[in-house]
């Protein structure tokens, strides 16, 4: 199970540039579904029908894209200017290794040495205007030949396993993608009592763009999004909510900034968890938004988000507990297998 997450996490797919991760997902799932297709924006659709009569049609979504950078300028000394793509805290970009474009050209974002700084300089964050990507090019011509303007960049991070956790990049939302892929990769004797359209969406991180066209194209009865979400059970102020906590099971969201979860679906999932003895938790913050925000309002589609808690999303390296990931897969699968009889 972790193997799929590892492959997906290591793949590159910054918003608007999801080719590599899409090809990998397609290759992983295509033998387990009836058909796959891609729309003009790059969303990847997989259809998994059921033989059951009058079965509800469930849209399952996970976004393929990850936050990153785009190269937007070249300096005469060969250094590159860039802009963040999606929610990237520019304080996290200082002193990081970056991979650029399909060729994975290595670059680094450096900073002025502490030795040459004024007394209080380190007390203010480095603004984006003080940051450059250095690929080792000695002038503008060499730089733009290797990395043309518009090239996407992501953190150079390699997936690692360590006892009961894994560390890697882009768990938001490759954890959701691999969870969804695992749901589709059923055994021969298994069949869901629902008609499933799974969509691996593009451009979630830049404003839920890919998901915006799904409701009209798929016309589902229900929608469930799978996410890697903020786990805040780390040393912080005591009054601050941890949002979700590691090792406490997959998280159900009542609401976020873009949608209120369907109580029917949430109850079904929490009941399933209780019956099957699967740990679960509720997400305690309403920050962020997900693809269901732009899906549920088009035609009134009851929707819900199920998330794997991840520490340090949108950072170079996140951490998740393997048990939370496996329990999220178990819970989603059980809930879908028993979908009809409960709703």
């Amino acid at each position, binding site marked *: 199970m972790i193997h799929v997450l590892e492959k997906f996490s290591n793949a590159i797919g910054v918003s608007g540039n999801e080719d590599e991760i899409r090809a990998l997902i397609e290759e992983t799932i295509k033998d387990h579904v009836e058909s796959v297709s891609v729309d003009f924006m790059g969303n990847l659709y997989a259809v998994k029908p059921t033989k059951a009569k009058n079965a509800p049609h469930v849209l399952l979504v996970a976004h393929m894209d990850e936050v990153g950078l785009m190269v937007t300028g070249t300096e005469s000394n060969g250094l590159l200017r860039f802009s963040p793509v999606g929610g*990237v*805290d520019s304080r996290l970009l200082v*002193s990081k*290794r970056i991979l650029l474009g399909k060729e994975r050209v290595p670059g680094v974002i450096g900073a002025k040495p*502490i*030795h040459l700084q004024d007394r209080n300089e380190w007390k203010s964050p480095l603004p984006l205007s003080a940051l450059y990507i*250095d*690929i080792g090019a000695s002038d503008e011509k060499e730089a733009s030949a290797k990395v043309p303007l518009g090239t996407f960049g992501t953190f150079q991070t390699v997936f690692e396993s360590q006892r009961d956790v894994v560390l890697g990049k882009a768990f938001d939302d490759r954890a959701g993608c691999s969870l969804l892929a695992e749901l589709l990769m059923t055994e021969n004797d298994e069949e869901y009592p629902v008609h499933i359209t799974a969509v691996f969406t593009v451009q979630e991180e830049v404003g839920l763009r890919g998901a915006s066209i799904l409701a009209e194209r798929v016309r589902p009865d229900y929608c469930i999004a799978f996410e890697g979400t903020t786990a805040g059970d780390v*040393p912080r102020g005591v009054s601050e909510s941890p949002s979700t906590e590691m090792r406490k099971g997959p998280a159900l969201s009542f609401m976020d900034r873009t949608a209120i979860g369907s109580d029917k679906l949430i109850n079904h999932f929490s009941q399933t968890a209780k019956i099957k003895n699967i740990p679960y938790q509720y997400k305690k913050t309403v920050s962020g938004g997900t693809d269901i925000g732009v899906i549920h309002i088009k035609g009134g589609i009851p929707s819900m988000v199920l998330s794997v808690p991840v520490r340090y999303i949108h950072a170079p390296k996140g951490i998740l507990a393997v048990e939370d990931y496996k329990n999220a897969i178990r819970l989603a699968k059980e809930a879908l297998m028993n979908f009809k009889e409960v709703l």
Partner: protein
Amino acid sequence: MKTEDMLKALTEAPGISGSEEDVAHLLRNYFARLTDEAFIDKFNNVIGIKKGTSSAGKVMMAAHIDQIGFLVHTFEEGGFIRIAPIGGHDPRVLPGQSVIIYGKEIIRGVIGTTPPHLQKSGDTGKVTALEELYVDTGLKEEDVKTRLQIGDPVLFDNVCTRMAGDYYSAAAMDNRAGVLVLLETLRILKGLKHQWDVYMVGTVQEEVGTRGGALTAYEIKPDVGIAIDVTFGDFPGIPDRQTSKLGGGGAVAVGPNFHPKLTERMIALARDWEIPFQKEFNPRPGGTDAVSMQIAARGVPMVQVSIPLRYMHTTVETLDLQDIRRAGRLLALFAAHIDEIHGEVVG
């Protein structure tokens, strides 16, 4: 072994100040192939001696083998780890870094950050002080405590990456770049005749006060000393006069720390052999081994050559390998002629 492979091995070997065993052993093995005698002293300084034809004098070349890092300071509830800095850190470099903790087992972790979703307004304008940062291994508290203890070294996770041209980027280029210059010098010196004994020294604890340099210069008592370190590479936002150009050759230091005539002769040698070099100006005694070697024992006339390095004391220190090759060539020629040069200018 190829120079670039040694750069990778040297930069990826752990060795924060005071815990230099691993990198010391690596360097001793490299020295053993290129010198007559190679050993590690009780402080983990590494010494390689290449005998000259007359052994009439001693030249000591020193590059520090230690690197900046952290120590495990406190375990917090939940298994989070507070860290204490070793050497000079900019706290703005630290959030989101991958680290490796060398405990009973090697444990990986990240320096924790707050995702934008959970930040409060105004947070992006703030720098988190080093004392407030923590390392998260993801492991349960009991798993952390049975594998790690207070004082274990914490290093940046380090991958030496080749970039365009001959540029390489890694943590610990400061000063494994200088160490590599020692090896490059020895490689070239094999093909040259030299009268004096050459002492190649990988020094410890430079980042916390140039201690290994003081200690080894006192023991060896060289007639001439050369410190080999890194210097600030060119980068926007830093005046040119404070930096040296990557690819411009080794930077020969000028200032009160350095013997003016020996320095002149080093520069003349570079000109004669058409080896690219540049000058850097250190108006006050600086922070390299030269500062302690100069006044070790009865005193040592010093010269210094540095490799231009961008982003010093970050995890992405970047250099041009050509500068290391050129500095090695210059220093090998200097060692081959040091008997004459010393006779003429120091006496």
